[in-house]
């Protein structure tokens, strides 16, 4: 799995902890990493992902459908799932302010019938807004 992930573009380093099943991915400086690609690469290596969290810095924008999004690159943004923390980001929409957030991009659905779908669009559930 480590080799699968290290082959992904924008990945600088992959740290795997077998004891607690934790995989930490460090992106390259100024590199564009694709979390959906990481999920797919992990599944392709035969390992199931229970949860994917990321810390990212970007601008708060609204997409064409009016959804609040975190834009990390001009061509890369993540739709934000509404919660209490995301409501606090509303005033920053389309401002030049950049914000660093920690959020959950993927969580394996609970229950036998809900199969995990790595191809589903990832939504960012904000867990923490970091003060810089």
């Amino acid at each position: 799995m480590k080799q699968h992930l290290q082959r992904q573009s924008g990945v600088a380093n992959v740290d795997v902890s077998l004891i607690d099943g934790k995989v930490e991915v460090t992106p390259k400086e100024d590199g564009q990493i694709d979390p959906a690609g990481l999920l797919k690469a992990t599944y392709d290596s035969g390992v199931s992902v229970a949860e994917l969290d990321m810390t990212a810095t970007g601008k708060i924008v609204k997409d064409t459908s009016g959804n609040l999004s975190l834009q990390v690159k001009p061509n890369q943004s993540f739709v934000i799932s509404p919660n209490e923390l995301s409501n606090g980001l509303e005033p920053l929409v389309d401002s030049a302010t950049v914000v660093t957030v920690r959020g959950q991009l993927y969580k394996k659905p609970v229950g036998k019938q809900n199969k995990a779908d790595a191809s589903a669009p990832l939504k960012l559930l904000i867990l923490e807004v970091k003060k810089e």
Partner: protein
Amino acid sequence: MNRKHLALLLLAGCAFVPQLEAQIRHVEMRVEGMT
């Protein structure tokens, strides 16, 4: 003329700085079935 150039430089600087800072800094996954 100089002031105009200075203002343009400042505007260009403001436009680029947030783009340089914006990036994914860290990704962490919890996985199952790893041996």
